């Protein structure tokens, strides 16, 4: 059980890291991209916009 918990913690640190907001914003941005493309609208701009926003926000909060 302790090993499983340690493994889960390792993967959490490995994938999510110090700021869970980053992972959350990436998931939402990918979902929005899929939804917009599904509706026939170009959505390539969503991820670059999300990257600037979340990186700026995360760094602002960290400093």
């Amino acid at each position, binding site marked *: 059980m302790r090993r499983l918990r340690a493994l889960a913690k390792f993967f959490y640190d490995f994938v999510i890291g110090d700021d869970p907001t980053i992972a959350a914003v990436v*998931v939402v941005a990918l979902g929005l991209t*899929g939804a917009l493309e599904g509706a026939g609208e170009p959505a390539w701009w*969503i991820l670059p916009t999300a*990257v600037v926003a979340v990186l700026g926000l*995360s760094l602002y909060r960290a400093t």
Partner: protein
Amino acid sequence: MSRDVLLFVAVFVACAVEGVEAVTIVLAAGLTRGWRSALAGTAAALVVLAGIVAVLGPALTALPIDTLRLVVGGLLLVFGLQWLRKAILRASGFKPLHDEDEVFTQELAAARAAGREPQAIDGYGFTLSFKGVLLEGLEVAFIAITFGSNQHNIGLAALAAGSAVVVVAAAGIAVHAPLSQVPENTLKFGVGVMLTTFGMFWGAEGAGAHWPGGDGAILALLAFTLATSLALVAALRRRHARRHLPPAAATS
């Protein structure tokens, strides 16, 4: 062609950074606890890694390409943004530089403090090397498998990862000391930019988006991510300087 070159460079640099960390730990274990245990730990970790790659590699390539791009692109993007965030904080002075000399000294002190056990294979040296090589090796494998399977060129990604590990290991053997000559934060900054770029490109493609200019958009995304990151470093450096002004200068 340019996609293959970018793939090779991205995987090589990312894996070299992980290699530097693993070699530093093995050197610290080898110098303090004996090379036999350090090398045995390294070999055991490589066997476990080979098993993990043998199981995960084919499973990944069996997935539909769009699903793979969406999942892997998302993971790379999260992973890349984390690296970039840390590298920007270090470059702007808000976080201490990840100094391999310091890591080496810490590992050395911890290894010495643990005391040597009177046995052929020293448990501490073995575990230290095993852990270091397995964790850093998992990151190397993750990078090589995800980049390679996305580009349908696992062979090239594996070649880049293997070359990076060989080059770093050879440098470690040659200098026999921590690889502090490698400007680690600069490398990590570059890797963060590349992972973020590929993550955006594949993630959006996996979600059904079409990039203007097709594959050429990778270069535009690379320039965009680099420019954004450098601008953030510059802004945070100013912020850091303002925070650390002497009181008289701050009020004048």
